[in-house]
């Protein structure tokens, strides 16, 4: 999806790879191993953890959400409210989320020192700073590689975008296209997953049988990683077509659809729940747009009014269904917004003191880690960055982030080896 920022960041221009004439090109050409340590892989496959990321496109204001500073010159017009955790207060724009605070962990000391949209997003989703010398896989690709069962009928890396079409993302780097994201544009099923009307089931079956016979004959003489990936692509495509209903949120009970609400983000949250319940490993829900250089307060009323109900309902549902222990929830942006209020009632980009939210899996419940100063301009306690967070996400779902991926025989660190997890937020 083309995300429209108010300033023209590089992220804005990120190209999405076409779905390569159907699902066929989803074959993984990347490493055939997963971990250097076989024990780790075995442990993970038995646990079935999941990750869902809420990506608040454009840069959610921490002051209008998780770290309010009411009554100060930077605080803006909104008040803070009590939450279900005594002593933790959040913005009055999140009344329903406040009632779920006992499930959440606020990481209030984030300092990523990067105020560019594209670079900030890259850092938050890869755990590394972008360099010309290397490209790193996004969190979804890492989770798909490290956590998704090999026989999963659903893609391991799903991104629900606010609008636009489907397609695959160029976000798996050296892990290969098998782990790149499949976008569900405005929550619609993946593109090209229905049989063309003029192709009957019997024709399709005969066609596939013929392809399989030819393929088997070829593989009996020449078997390589590339040929196996080619075969895998058809197998996954067939599974995906058979599981197309998994992407159809209208199949959820009417009562749940009413409970979530009749707007896009609400549908996307319900779809995320559906996908997780159907076995998806990683789902990202994007909400647009928070790049509020102008009229920050009006737009946060509008956007967080949508987010509050949908997200709170999602968290409560996962808790009620016993899924929170196995599901990591992350709410992130590319950065926060300036404490300073500009001429246009706007806030600009601010990466030096902002907040990321986590919940579920091994994350401690009902805590606020880290602290900013009275005006919210600097972190004064518990400072962390994108790399610390990336380690923590993975460790929260049982992935040893200090391990390596085996990429065609080469050890590649899963997360930045110069960084480490935030111990205090994990139980």
């Amino acid at each position, binding site marked *: 999806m*083309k*995300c*429209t*920022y*108010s*300033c023209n960041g590089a992220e804005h221009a990120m190209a999405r790879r076409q779905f390569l004439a159907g699902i066929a090109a989803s074959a993984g050409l990347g490493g055939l191993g997963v971990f250097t340590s076989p024990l780790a892989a075995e442990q993970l496959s038995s646990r079935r953890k999941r990750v869902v990321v809420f990506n608040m496109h*454009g840069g959610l204001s921490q002051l209008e959400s998780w770290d309010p500073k*009411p*009554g100060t*010159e930077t605080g*803006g*017009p*909104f*008040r803070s409210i009590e939450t279900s955790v005594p002593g933790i207060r959040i913005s009055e724009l999140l009344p329903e989320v406040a009632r779920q605070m006992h499930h959440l962990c606020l990481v209030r000391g984030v300092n990523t020192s990067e105020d560019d949209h594209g670079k900030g997003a890259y850092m938050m989703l890869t755990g590394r700073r972008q360099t010309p010398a290397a490209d790193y896989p996004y969190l979804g690709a890492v989770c798909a590689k490290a956590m998704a069962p090999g026989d999963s009928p659903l893609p391991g890396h799903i991104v629900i975008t*606010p*609008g636009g079409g489907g397609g695959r993302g160029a976000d798996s780097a050296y892990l290969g296209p098998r782990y790149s994201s499949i976008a569900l544009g405005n929550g619609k099923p993946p593109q090209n997953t229905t049989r063309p009307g003029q192709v009957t089931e019997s024709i399709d079956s005969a066609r596939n049988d013929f392809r399989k016979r030819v393929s088997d004959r070829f593989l009996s003489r020449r078997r390589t990683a590339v040929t196996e990936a080619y075969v895998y692509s058809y197998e996954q495509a067939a599974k995906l077509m058979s599981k197309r209903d998994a992407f159809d949120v209208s199949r959820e009970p009417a009562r749940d659809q009413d409970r979530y609400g009749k707007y*896009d983000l609400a549908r996307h949250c319900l779809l995320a729940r559906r996908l997780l319940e159907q076995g998806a490993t990683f789902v990202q829900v994007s909400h*647009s*747009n928070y*790049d*509020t*250089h*102008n*009229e920050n307060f*009006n*737009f946060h*009323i*509008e*956007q967080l009014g949508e987010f509050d109900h949908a997200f709170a309902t999602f968290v409560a549902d996962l808790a009620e269904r016993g899924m929170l222990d196995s599901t990591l929830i992350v709410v992130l942006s590319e950065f926060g917004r300036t404490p300073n*209020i500009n*001429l*246009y009632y*706007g806030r600009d980009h601010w990466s030096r003191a902002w907040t990321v939210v986590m919940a579920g899996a091994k994350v401690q419940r009902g805590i606020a880690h880290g602290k900013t100063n009275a005006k919210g301009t600097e972190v004064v306690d518990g400072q962390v960055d994108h790399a610390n967070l990336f380690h923590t996400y993975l460790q929260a779902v049982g992935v040893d982030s200090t391990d390596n991926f085996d990429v065609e025989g080469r050890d590649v660190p899963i997360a930045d080896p110069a960084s480490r997890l935030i111990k205090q937020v994990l139980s």
Partner: protein
Amino acid sequence: MTDSRAPVPAGFDPKQAHVTAQWRADAPLVCCRFEPKGRFVFCGLESAVVERFALADGKKVPFAGGHESWVFSLAFSHDGARTYTGGGDGRVTVWETASDAPRPVQKIEAHRGWVRAMSMSPDGAFLATGGNDRLVKIWHAATGSLARELKGHAGHVYSLEFSPDGKTLFSGDLMGVVNLWEVATGRLMGSLDAKALHTYEGGQQVDFGGVRGLAIAPDAKLIAAGGLHKASNPLGAVHEPLVLLFDGQSHKQTRTLLADAITGGVVWRLRFLADGSLMGACGGSNGGILLFWKTDADKDFHRFTLPNILRDMDLHPDGLRVATSHHDRHVRITRLGPKSA
């Protein structure tokens, strides 16, 4: 309907407008209003405190303890004795206007969300409030008790004006709708289509604009609704000011008032002047500008640029002085006439 237009004050000439005074507040300003007797200008700030400035000498008096949020709207009793402040905390607080040590006289929990607009009825009996809860409420001004609750807006209520005869209340919202309410019954009588003032930007997925300013001509023959259009980048303040003129009887739009080459501009407030022209307060990336239109022409005939971006405006009861609230923490008083007059 009789012509209730006030006489044109001596020396009135917008083309010779000039700033006569400016006073510094303790935070960037959000809104400003003259009280009916013309002694003071009240200012809502980017803080929970309202500040009052005496026009005679600029003396500043804080009005503290009334709110837990910024004050977005101001109104006064007819005799000027009481001041009403509407806050982002949903509260209307009542004060003694001229007090040397002002304290809240009454606090009314009026709306869920911001009280964005207030208007006093011409006879002083009713105070109308509009809020983020999409409601318009009419209060007995003397007691602060609720008289009517009016439902019918699909977006935040941004602006309110009583008709000169006090029988109709006009309320403008984010979605570009101006509703007409019968004050006596609370009945929705109709609406004006001001949707040109609203933008839904699909890429950014935001509603933007709205009826920021409303003005009713003293003879009720014209209704003006102001705000912005051409919002190609709402989150980045790329838009231009726009005013729509409606016929007071048919409620049909009769004219579109434009102001060229003001990118980033938005009309925050409108006032009809004694000579029948219309004044708009325009803030934006081009700064703070007072725009003047003849109501029989599309383009502004004059514009007066102020030293800083402005956010609100009010016309003094003398019809000659204008207060503007600015981001640079100043309230400025502009005289619509020559310096020597």
